[in-house]
């Protein structure tokens, strides 16, 4: 587990960034088809579900993580739980790669071959995954600065025309369209399972500066939920009921898109931010899946490369376009994916809790005997 350690602040930053990347690209457009102007309510429900999963994942980390599970229950239980989660991660990574490729093609390389972009993205993601948790943590810290840059440039140059009235009436069509939209995108719900393979440690520099007590995780996880709901509200205020025709939400809503010049518009900061977080998110998935294979005494870099090959084959040759990836992700597979994402962390938590309680009882018994 030597390359699984990440500081608490880096962990919290990952929690903040992970939801926003693949939930704010094509998803608003897909949600709009059913929920219309109420997509922000769907997102609120999604984020509440995400935070529930996160709470379990964090609790498992505090109980020693999946390694503790392996130590206490042996390999059979460990693999029974981690193999399904690994398969889910791989499938999700493949669909997300297809989404990333489509995004990069649309905004950066409109004359490059699709497969070339996707493969290069996965190579970069694999490299970061091989570098381990430390690399992921550092990278996520480095890209954080793009947010204030985005806000400052947006405030200086942006001319976003928002119509708050677009949000009204709230829930006028009842709960059914919201429920349908939620059901449709179940595949994109619960993305924190790769974090089961990370171990948090205190940040030495923060301890030295006596700032280690700041509750990074609660603050940033709640901020992430609020941030997502606010982004969806802005989306509705901006596009009204035309939300379903928007290709990629983040770039379109990025205030920079409205910095028009006579020969084009400046939209690079928004694109850079989205793409960086997408690659980090994919790296984390490769890292998680690689960890499961590596636990069977395979070298970790080799394990990540094997996962990357499967992701490339699925993402670039099976789901070679966004439509294929979406029709797959919105099929029955979504129920399998969310089922595994829910069951595995909860089961792991219950099993660890049982052991913890029994060892506590044993200790109490020994103390009582003494």
């Amino acid at each position, binding site marked *: 587990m030597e390359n699984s350690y990440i500081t608490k602040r880096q962990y919290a930053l990952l929690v903040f960034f992970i939801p926003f990347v693949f939930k704010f690209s094509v998803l608003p457009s897909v949600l709009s088809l059913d929920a219309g102007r109420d997509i922000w309510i769907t997102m609120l429900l999604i984020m509440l579900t995400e935070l529930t999963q996160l709470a379990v994942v964090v609790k498992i980390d505090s109980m020693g993580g999946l390694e503790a599970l392996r130590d206490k229950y042996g390999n059979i239980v460990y693999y029974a739980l981690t193999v399904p989660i690994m398969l889910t991660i791989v499938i999700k990574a493949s669909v997300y790669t297809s989404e990333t490729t489509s995004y990069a093609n649309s905004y950066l390389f*409109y004359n490059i071959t699709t497969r070339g972009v996707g493969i290069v993205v996965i*190579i970069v993601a694999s490299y970061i995954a091989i570098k381990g948790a430390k690399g992921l943590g550092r990278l996520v810290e480095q890209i954080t600065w793009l947010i204030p840059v985005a806000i400052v440039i947006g405030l200086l140059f942006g001319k976003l025309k928002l119509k708050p009235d677009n949000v*009204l*009436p709230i829930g*006028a069509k009842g709960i059914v369209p919201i429920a349908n939209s939620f059901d449709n995108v179940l595949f994109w719900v619960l993305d924190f399972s790769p974090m089961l393979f990370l171990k948090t440690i205190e940040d030495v520099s923060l301890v030295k500066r006596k700032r280690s007590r700041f509750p990074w995780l609660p603050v940033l996880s709640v901020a992430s939920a609020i941030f997502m709901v606010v982004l969806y509200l802005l989306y509705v205020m901006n596009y009204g009921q*035309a939300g379903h025709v928007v290709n990629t939400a983040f770039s379109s809503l990025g205030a920079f898109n409205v910095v*028009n010049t*006579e*020969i*084009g518009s400046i939209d690079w900061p928004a694109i850079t931010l989205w793409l960086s977080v997408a690659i980090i998110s994919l790296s984390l998935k490769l890292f998680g899946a690689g960890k499961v294979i590596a636990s069977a005494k395979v070298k970790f870099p080799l394990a990540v490369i094997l996962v990357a090959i499967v992701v490339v084959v699925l993402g670039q040759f099976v789901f070679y376009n966004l439509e294929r990836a979406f029709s797959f992700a919105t099929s029955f597979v979504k129920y399998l994916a969310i089922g595994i994402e829910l069951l595995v962390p909860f089961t792991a938590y219950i099993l660890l809790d049982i052991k913890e309680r029994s060892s506590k009882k044993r200790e109490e018994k020994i103390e009582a005997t003494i």
Partner: protein
Amino acid sequence: MKRQYKWIAFLICFILMFALGVEITPLSERAIVAGLGIDYDNGVFTISAQILLPSSDDSKTSNIVVSSAKGETIGEALAKISSESSMLVATSHCNLVLLGEGTLNGKAYSSLDYMIRNAYLSENALILTTEGTAKDILNAKTAYSDMTSFYIQRELMVYGNYKEAVHRNIKEYLSSYYTENSANWLTKVRKVETEKPQTGGSTSAGSSSGSGSDDKVYVLDFARCAIIKGDNFVFDGNEDVISGINLLTSTLDKGDVVISDGEYTYCFYIVKSKSKLSYKPENFTAKASLKVDILLKEIVSSSNETLPFSVIDVEPDSKVDGLLKEYFNNVITRAFEECKSHEVDIFDLYGGFYGKMGRKWIDYSKNYLEKSVLLVDTEITYY
């Protein structure tokens, strides 16, 4: 050991980039489209692209051409332009789309399908309609610029929103299209012949081709608008209609208002205008609150009297103030009533009433436009 991974990853990326075919088209082989005109007639699109051609010598100047091609789809016509010019047509820098008159009848939305599906044409690109064909406008030789596309963008986008000319982009057009009543509007650009300005120097840009190559020069006028409902053109709005729409749907920061009390004629300048709509769906009433910051620019007497001038003359008397408020109220009301008479809910009162009343509105809304009243309350601040 760890460094090896970095170099291996780097090397694989490079090999793949070349092996999988990265097309790198040099700038000199790209036709950079600055403005796109879409005309439609008898099932055929005529696409006109105003193109910047990089100069082959070192003079650092660009040539400008308007290239046109016909096709059943916009993509097909653009491909023809590419093939004829033997250059890759690049629309990634296109910030202007002109829909010709023929396009507005049933093809306004479907002609935008190409732009919606292809993200590299920005949704923030300006969209206008034209009097006559879009091709004709792109070919017009304007008095103040060698390139029509840049002239229009400068006029509408760079110098801010005028009372008579407001920019509207593809995103805003689509947003209106998908409202419940699908009322929409587009600024109409028309060319007006003017005298050729006498200039002392020469311009560096190249020449325009097509019908604009004669000696006539034009200025472009934006004080008209096409009112559209769904996919159908409804009527041509005059200066009053477009001023009313602009005042209520945009933040203006330019434009003159001239009023007369019989004795004197006053010219005011709009520094800033903002508006807000509130709704009372129960009695089908909407109230527009307009706030205008205004500057007194000039007073002209109808007699030969010389007016005593004072630098502190800022606020006119209550009579003129009343006339000014009446002017703004009337402009907005007239725009609303004119559109209402054509069964177009131009200010989307349906959406406002629905937002306020919720689900009940759907049953309550029968013949709502007929019953709807728009009240306007103007507040003026003198600078």
